């Protein structure tokens, strides 16, 4: 049986932040991930906001970690080279009658330790953001708010963790966890894939001294396998619309609406890449795997978002829409602790908003919990920094020349909408914990993320992936598993009717 000191279940932003912190220590760490890549669950489909921390109730874990996470983010972005921008945020108030709630938010933020908070008048807000709705009577301004790329934050953490010795097992699903005399036995199903090979072993068991449950919306299931004190998570769906970069400058700060009981409401924000994003809705659902969007949801996003700004430029500018699930715990706060009746089993559950912001702080905290359990030595040779993949699109002419000199593939454009070159795509594949899917490339280097949504570059990307991974193009998938792009060769079907129509099923 494979033995590991620490097994982390889930390679989302939380799991990888914990892994990166643990990789400072002399520990044998494995992350198990059901999907083919990091950041495939809650972490990938969210607002991409580094929250300043005025929202959480003082005294909660959310409040405590939010402030720390918000303060860590700029430094981490430099250290690990992922896109972060401190654009500030505004909570818009539309009614004089709600001023009490806005002031309460201000007070809460001050209690939590958020710096620079102030209330602005409607006109002051419009002076800052000319497109803000005339209905806005006031706003809470939080200068420390920012935007971050959730995927690149996760990738940066994962790459850095891998460089420092953390192992990853993708396309591997934990099906059961049992207590053993010293630790836990995890039963896993390892699926055939490009990473695992087509002859992957199938079922396997792993022994772990410590298990860290960072399984997002599935964390309650794993917790309940080892504890009698059951927890329950509700997947709360949020739908988003992403708009073209043409209108990315419509607002510069992140515009929230005064929070309601169900969350932070719909926000309108520039993304760190210069698109405009609107969302999310908040609807509790049953299925923790179903992230489908709905006509009603998308309409609601646009309708609600239109409250914040004048003439939200959605028409003709929506380039994609998506939905994500937040793991809402019934108690409403994060659960980050060693399970009382399961020693060595650490829950990191209910990580909903501001989960992205807090992940680095959670990483530190959980590592300290692990320290308390097994007292590992710190590594002397820990690599603390990581260089991101260069972006030709963002480089100026001089930088482009330098990059091209270094590697001529940085001059070979594959995705013309986002100006992504073959050099960047090859980097994305060859990196530690590199891309093996089209979605993996898209999230790492933005190829196919633009207005044509990969119409032109899909065939090219498929060929580059196949070449780099040493497989036939038929094995290339959109997002792992059975999401293959091609279904065989022309004329090779057995019973060709060469007739169309839905009747002959």
């Amino acid at each position, binding site marked *: 049986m494979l033995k590991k000191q620490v097994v982390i279940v889930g390679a989302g932003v939380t799991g990888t932040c914990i892994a990166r912190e643990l990789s400072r220590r002399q520990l044998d760490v494995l992350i198990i991930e059901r999907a083919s890549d990091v950041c495939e669950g809650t972490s990938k489909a969210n607002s991409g906001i580094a929250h300043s921390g005025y929202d959480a109730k003082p005294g909660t874990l959310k409040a405590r970690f939010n402030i720390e996470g918000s303060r860590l983010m700029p430094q981490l972005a430099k250290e690990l080279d992922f896109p972060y921008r401190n654009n500030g945020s505004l909570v818009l108030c539309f009614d004089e009658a709600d001023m009490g709630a806005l002031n309460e938010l201000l007070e809460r933020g001050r209690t939590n330790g958020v710096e620079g908070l102030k209330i602005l008048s409607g006109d002051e807000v419009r002076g800052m953001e000319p497109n803000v709705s005339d209905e806005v009577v006031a706003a809470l301004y939080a200068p420390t708010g920012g935007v971050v790329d959730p995927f690149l934050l996760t990738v940066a953490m994962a790459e850095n963790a891998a460089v420092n010795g953390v192992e990853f097992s993708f396309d591997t699903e934990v099906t059961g966890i049992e207590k053993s005399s010293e630790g836990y036995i995890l039963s896993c199903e390892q699926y055939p894939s490009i990473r695992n090979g087509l002859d992957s072993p199938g079922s396997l068991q792993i022994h772990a001294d410590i298990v860290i449950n960072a399984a997002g919306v599935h964390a309650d299931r794993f917790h309940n396998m080892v504890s009698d004190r059951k927890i329950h998570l509700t997947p709360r769906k949020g739908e988003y619309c*992403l708009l073209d970069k043409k209108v990315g400058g419509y607002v510069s700060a992140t515009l929230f609406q005064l929070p309601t009981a169900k969350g932070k409401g719909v926000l309108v924000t520039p993304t760190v890449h210069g698109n405009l994003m609107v969302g999310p809705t908040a609807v509790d659902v049953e299925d923790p795997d*179903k*992230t*489908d*969007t*709905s*006509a009603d949801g*998308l309409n609601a996003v646009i309708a609600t978002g239109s409250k914040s700004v004048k003439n939200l430029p959605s028409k*003709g500018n*929506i*380039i*994609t*829409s*998506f939905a994500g699930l937040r793991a809402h715990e019934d108690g409403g706060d994060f659960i980050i602790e060693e399970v009382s009746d399961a020693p060595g089993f650490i829950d990191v559950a209910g990580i909903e908003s501001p989960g992205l912001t807090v992940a680095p702080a959670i990483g530190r905290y959980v590592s300290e919990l692990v320290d308390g359990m097994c007292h590992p030595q710190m590594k002397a040779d820990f690599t603390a920094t990581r260089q991101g993949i260069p972006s030709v699109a963002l480089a100026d*002419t001089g930088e*482009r*020349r330098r990059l*091209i*000199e270094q590697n*001529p*593939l940085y*001059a*070979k*454009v594959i995705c*013309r909408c986002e*100006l992504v*070159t*073959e050099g960047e795509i090859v980097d994305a594949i060859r990196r530690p914990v590199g891309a093996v899917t089209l979605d993996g490339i898209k999230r790492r280097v933005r190829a196919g993320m633009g*207005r*044509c*949504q*990969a*119409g*032109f570059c*899909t*065939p090219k990307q498929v060929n580059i992936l196949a070449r780099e991974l040493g497989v036939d*193009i*038929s094995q290339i*998938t*959109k*997002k*792992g*598993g*059975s*999401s293959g*792009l*091609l*279904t*065989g*060769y*022309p*004329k*090779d*079907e057995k019973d060709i009717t*060469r*007739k*169309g*129509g*839905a009747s002959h*099923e």
Partner: protein
Amino acid sequence: MNKHVSILVIGGGPAGLAAGVSAYKAGIKDVLIIERDVRLGGILNQCIHNGFGLHTFKEELTGPEYAARYISQVEELGVPYRLATIVTDLQLSDDGHTKIVTTMDEQGGLTVYEADAVILAMGCRERARGALNIPGERPAGIYTAGTAQYFVNLEGRMPGREVVILGSGDIGLIMARRMTLEGAHVKLVAELQPYSGGLKRNIVQCLDDYGIPLMLSHTVVKIHGDKRLTGVTIAEVDDKLSPIPGSEKFYECDTLLLSCGLLPENELSGQLGVNLSPVTFGAVVNESLETSVPGVFSCGNVLHVHDLVDYVSEEATAAGKHAAEYIQSGIVESAEGGSDEKVTRVITDGGVRYSVPSLLRADHMADLTTIRFRVGAVYKDVDVVTYADGRELARLHKRVMAPGEMEQLILRKSDLISEGVPSEYRITIENKAGQ
């Protein structure tokens, strides 16, 4: 050191090829075609079906054959071109006369050209799922018709087996036949509008021949499938194009092809500050196919989406000639007319959606000018009527006109200015009684 060229053509598809050849034949040898792909011909390379060239060559060619006719002219004349090269930046020099064009390619790295004139011939792209904002999941198996066409015709691979097509644009219709012939099963083509966006011959030869139903006034309202597409929900739409509740029906399929319209790729034109039409999303051009930026011309699908390549070639040939004249005249002037020059605006109404060109400078007009336009709905037995400042110039009876088929009329300069240069030239549809 920046390189100088007289005319730089952006794009080596049908428009760029014809424009380059035309400029060269008009005497400007110092022309350069920049093509992003590894071969000339653009999208024609994957359009292996026949039906091209009836108008130009009086014979029916496939796309690659049609492209080959122009490519051989480029080769024989020695028109310079560069392959696998992309234009990354397009700017005006400080004096506004020179166009600074930056390109990148694997061999040459980063190159900066100074061009006296630029011909925009970048073509168009297909409207993607995101732009249609179809709700549902995000599985593999959703392709634009053009991407599927690339896989089948250039890679020799099937992108799917059980196929539903959304949109009855020509590429979608063509792909219905291609996929069927190559062994896939095309269940249906759903079209949001109450009429098809494609050519009639394609409906007959690509759908009717193979028993593929065309469901007008239907659209995909939901996409199903976590990893690979498992099916789509299709609903009928009302006259406001909204899905009718209760009409939803699930169709099992592993592939959804989108053929929902083409959009000119004018991102580079935007960098130059070229005025774009809110209707065509292409540049606003005058009779010389010159944009609002002097010395910058536009033709083919980047100007407005065509349905026949023959007209792309014709338009591009004109653009190439006008660009050559611009160089030869040695005069740099405003494309919208000098201060003392009277410009005629082309007004379209009564069902005519747009025209190309939309500005006419009488001083620069040849005896005959081709005006291309599209209508916004299907019209039967109507008159296309043109007016110069209210004075009727011509009346042309049309048995049928449809949004999917571009129309054209030939304007005689002497007719237009017989009573002086008009400020308005209007194209409209009359006698719509009984519609």
